C-alpha cells in the first residue's frame, strides 16, 4: 500500500533526521536567535542610557508632568499660564495640534475635491491649471512651503497700525489675522444645543426613511428634510431669543488688536502650507477615484431612467468612495503628522511644547516617547477606522 509506505517513510524521517536539518526546528532556533539578538541590543542600549542619565543626573520617569512649567505658550484653547504644570502645557500642545489638523483637514478636503474635479474638467484651461498646481505643489517640500508662507506673511504684511482691511471686521497685519465674531451671549449655548438636537433628529429620520423604503418602497425626501431640520432648528432658536447680532470687532489698542478672534501668523502659515501641500495629493486621490468608476455605470443608470442626483448618490459615489477613502485617510494622517513641522516656525503644537519641555527638564527619552505615543494613537485610531470601513465597504459577492 503506497499510503502506508509514505507514512512509514515520514515516521522513519522523523526519527532519524538530526534536529538541525528539520525545517520546523530550524525555524524555531532561528527565531530564538533573532530574539536573543534583539534582546541583547535592547539591553545594551537601555543599560547605556541608564548609566549616562545617572552620570548627567537627569531624573527618569514622568514625574515632571506635575511640576511647574514656567514657560509661556503663545496661543492656547484652554487657560494656561507659566504657573501651570508641564502636563497642562502638553495638553495645550496636543489641543493646538488637533486644532490645526482639524481645520486643515476640512479645508484640504474641500480644496482637494475641487482640484481633483477641476483636473478632470472638460475645460482645457481649468484642467491644465489644476494639473500644473498639483505637479508643482507635490514636488516642493512642505517645510519649505511653510517657511515661504511664514516669510511672506512676516515680510509683506503691514504693522497692525496700517493693517489691511479687505472686508469690514477683518484685519490683516504681520501680527496675524484678526476678525469679528459674534459677541458671547448665553443664547449661543441654546443654539448649539438645537444644532445637536437637529443632527440627532435627522439621524433618526434617515434611519426611519430607509427602513420604510426597504419595506414599502416609498421614498422620503430625506435630504431636504434633514437639511431643513439641521439649519432650521438653530435658526429658530436664534430668532426666538430675539436674534442678537452684536459683533465683537477687533480694535487697535497699543501695538496689537484686542477683541474679536485672532489667528497668529504661525498658525496661518502652518495651515496654509499644510492645506496647499496636502490638497495636491488629495486631488490626485479624488481624480483616481472618479476615473475608477466605469463609464458604463453612469450610462446604465441613465438608461433605467434615474435622474442625475440619484445617479451620483446611489451609483457613482458609493463605487468611487470605495477607491477614494483608504488613500484619503492616509493623506489626512499625513497632514496630522506633518503638522509636527510647526516646531520649525514656532507654532506651539505638541512637538514644539514637548521640545521645550525636553530642553528644560533634560528628560529627552520621556519627551520623545510622549511625542511618538500621541502620533501612534492618531495612526492606530485611523487604521482601526480603516479596517472598519474596509469591512463595511467590501464588495458583497454572491
Amino acid at each position: 500500500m503506497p499510503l502506508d509506505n509514505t507514512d512509514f517513510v515520514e515516521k522513519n524521517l522523523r526519527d532519524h533526521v538530526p534536529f538541525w536539518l528539520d525545517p520546523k526546528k530550524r525555524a524555531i532556533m532561528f527565531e530564538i536567535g533573532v530574539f536573543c539578538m534583539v534582546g541583547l541590543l535592547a539591553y545594551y542600549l537601555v543599560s547605556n542610557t541608564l548609566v549616562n542619565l545617572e552620570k548627567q543626573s537627569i531624573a527618569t520617569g514622568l514625574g515632571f508632568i506635575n511640576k511647574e512649567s514656567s514657560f509661556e505658550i503663545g496661543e492656547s484653547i484652554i487657560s494656561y499660564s507659566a504657573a501651570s504644570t508641564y502636563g497642562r502645557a502638553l495638553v495645550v500642545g496636543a489641543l493646538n495640534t488637533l486644532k490645526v489638523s482639524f481645520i486643515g483637514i476640512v479645508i484640504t478636503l474641500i480644496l482637494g475635491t475641487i482640484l481633483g474635479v477641476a483636473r478632470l474638467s472638460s475645460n482645457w484651461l481649468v484642467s491644465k491649471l489644476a494639473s500644473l498646481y498639483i505637479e508643482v505643489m507635490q514636488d516642493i517640500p512642505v517645510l519649505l512651503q511653510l517657511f515661504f508662507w511664514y516669510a511672506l506673511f512676516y515680510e509683506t504684511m503691514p504693522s497692525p497700525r496700517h493693517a489691511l482691511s479687505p472686508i469690514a471686521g477683518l484685519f490683516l497685519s504681520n501680527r496675524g489675522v484678526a476678525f469679528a465674531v459674534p459677541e458671547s451671549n448665553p443664547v449661543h449655548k441654546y443654539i448649539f444645543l438645537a444644532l445637536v438636537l437637529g443632527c440627532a433628529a435627522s439621524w433618526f429620520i434617515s434611519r426611519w426613511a430607509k427602513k420604510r423604503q426597504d419595506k414599502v418602497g416609498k421614498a422620503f425626501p430625506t435630504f431636504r428634510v434633514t437639511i431643513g431640520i439641521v439649519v432650521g432648528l438653530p435658526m429658530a432658536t436664534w430668532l426666538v431669543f430675539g436674534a442678537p447680532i452684536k459683533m465683537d470687532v477687533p480694535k487697535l489698542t497699543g501695538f496689537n488688536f484686542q477683541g474679536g478672534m485672532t489667528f497668529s501668523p504661525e498658525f496661518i502659515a502652518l495651515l496654509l502650507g499644510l492645506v496647499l501641500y496636502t490638497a495636491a495629493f488629495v486631488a490626485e486621490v479624488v481624480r483616481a477615484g472618479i476615473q475608477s468608476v466605469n463609464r458604463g455605470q453612469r450610462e446604465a443608470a441613465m438608461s433605467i431612467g434615474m435622474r442625475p442626483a440619484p445617479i451620483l448618490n446611489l451609483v457613482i459615489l458609493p463605487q468611487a468612495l470605495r477607491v477614494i477613502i483608504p488613500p484619503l485617510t492616509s493623506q489626512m494622517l499625513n497632514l496630522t503628522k506633518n503638522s509636527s513641522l510647526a516646531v520649525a516656525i514656532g507654532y506651539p503644537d505638541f512637538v514644539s511644547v514637548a521640545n521645550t519641555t525636553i530642553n528644560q527638564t533634560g528628560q529627552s527619552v520621556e519627551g520623545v516617547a510622549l511625542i511618538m505615543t500621541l502620533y501612534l494613537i492618531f495612526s492606530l485610531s485611523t487604521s482601526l477606522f480603516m479596517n472598519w470601513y474596509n469591512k463595511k465597504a467590501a464588495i458583497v459577492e454572491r
Partner: protein
Amino acid sequence: MEESVLGTQTDEIKPPVTNVGIVGWVRANLFNGVFNSTLTIVAIFLLWKIIPPLFQWAFIDSVWYTTGKACRGIDGACWSVIPSNIRFIIFGFYPYDQHWRPFLAMIILFGLLFYSKDRNHWTKNLGYSWITGLVIMGILMKGGIFGLTSVESTKWGGLPLTLLLSFFGLTAAYPLGVILALGRQSKMRGLKVLCVLYIELIRGVPLISLLFMSSIIFPLFLPEGVTINKILRAQVAIILFTAAYIAEVVRGGLQAMSRGQYEAAEAIGLNYYLTMRLVILPQALKIVIPPTVSILISAFKDTSLVVIIALYDLLKTTQSVLSNPDWMGFSREAYIFVAILYFLGCFSMSKFSRKLEKELSAGEISG
C-alpha cells in the same frame, strides 16, 4: 436619378468654420456650455490679475547682480541674493578653495543617474560603476588620501548633503526594507510580529520625532566616550524611517507573486534563501521599481527636515544667508530659488517613474 444623388454626395462639404481649427478647438474645449464658459472667463480674469504683476515683480522691476543695500529701494524682486551667496547656499561650510570636490562628486552622481535612466544599461557593470562612483564620491568629499586635504564631515553642507542624505539613505534602507518585508511575510510567528511592530511603529510617527531621537537620545545610547557625528546620526534616522516604507512597498511586490512561483521553486528543490534570491525577489523587486522611485522622491523632500535639528542642508544654508543683516527680508526670492531646485529634482524623478511604469506594464502585456 441615382447617379446624380451619388454625384452630390461625393461633393465635399466643408465643416463650418466654427467646428474646425482654432475656433473649433476653443469652442470645444473652453466655451462648451454656459458653465464652462463662465469658468474660462473667471480663470482668464484671475490669470490676468496675477500673472502680469508677478511677471513685473520677477523680471521687469527686478535686479540680479547688486549688493543687498542697493536692493532696498526697488519694487521688484531682488534676485541678487542668490548669485551673491550661491556658493554658500550650494556648498555650506565646505572650505572655499575645495568647492570643486563636492561639485565634481555631484557631477559624477548626476552622470550616473543619467546613464542609469536607460533600461538597456541595467547590467551588472552598472552596479559595479555605481559602487565605484560612490567610493570616488566619498573620497572626494572626505579627502585625506591622494593628496586631497581632509575635510571633516561636520563641514559638509548644502546640496551635496541633501543629495547624500537622500540617495545614500535610500541605498542603505533598501536591503533593510527587503529583510523587513520578508520577515513580515514569513511563517515564523515571532519574527513576523517583530517586523510588523517595527514597520507600523515607524510609519505611525512623524520623521521629526525620529530626528529628535537621533539628535538627543542617540548619544545616550552609546557608552561613554563614544560619539558619532550629527550627520551620521541623522542619516541613521532617515535610513530607519525609509526602510519601513520600503518594506511596505516590497511587501506589495511579494504579495503580487503567484503561489505557483513558490511551489515551482520548492518543486525543483530550492531552499528558502535560493527561492527568494533566484525566483521571488528578482520578479517582486522589478514590479515595485516605480513606487520605490516615489519613496526616493519623498526621501529627497523629507531630508529638508534636518533643518530642525540644525544640520546645514540646502534649506538651512539658505536660511542662514537670510539671517545675514545684508540680505534680511529677501526670503521670497531665496525660497523660490530653493523651491525650483527641489522641483527640478522631484519632477525629473517622477517623470522617470511614470515612464518606467508605462514600460514595465507594457512589457508585462506583451509577454
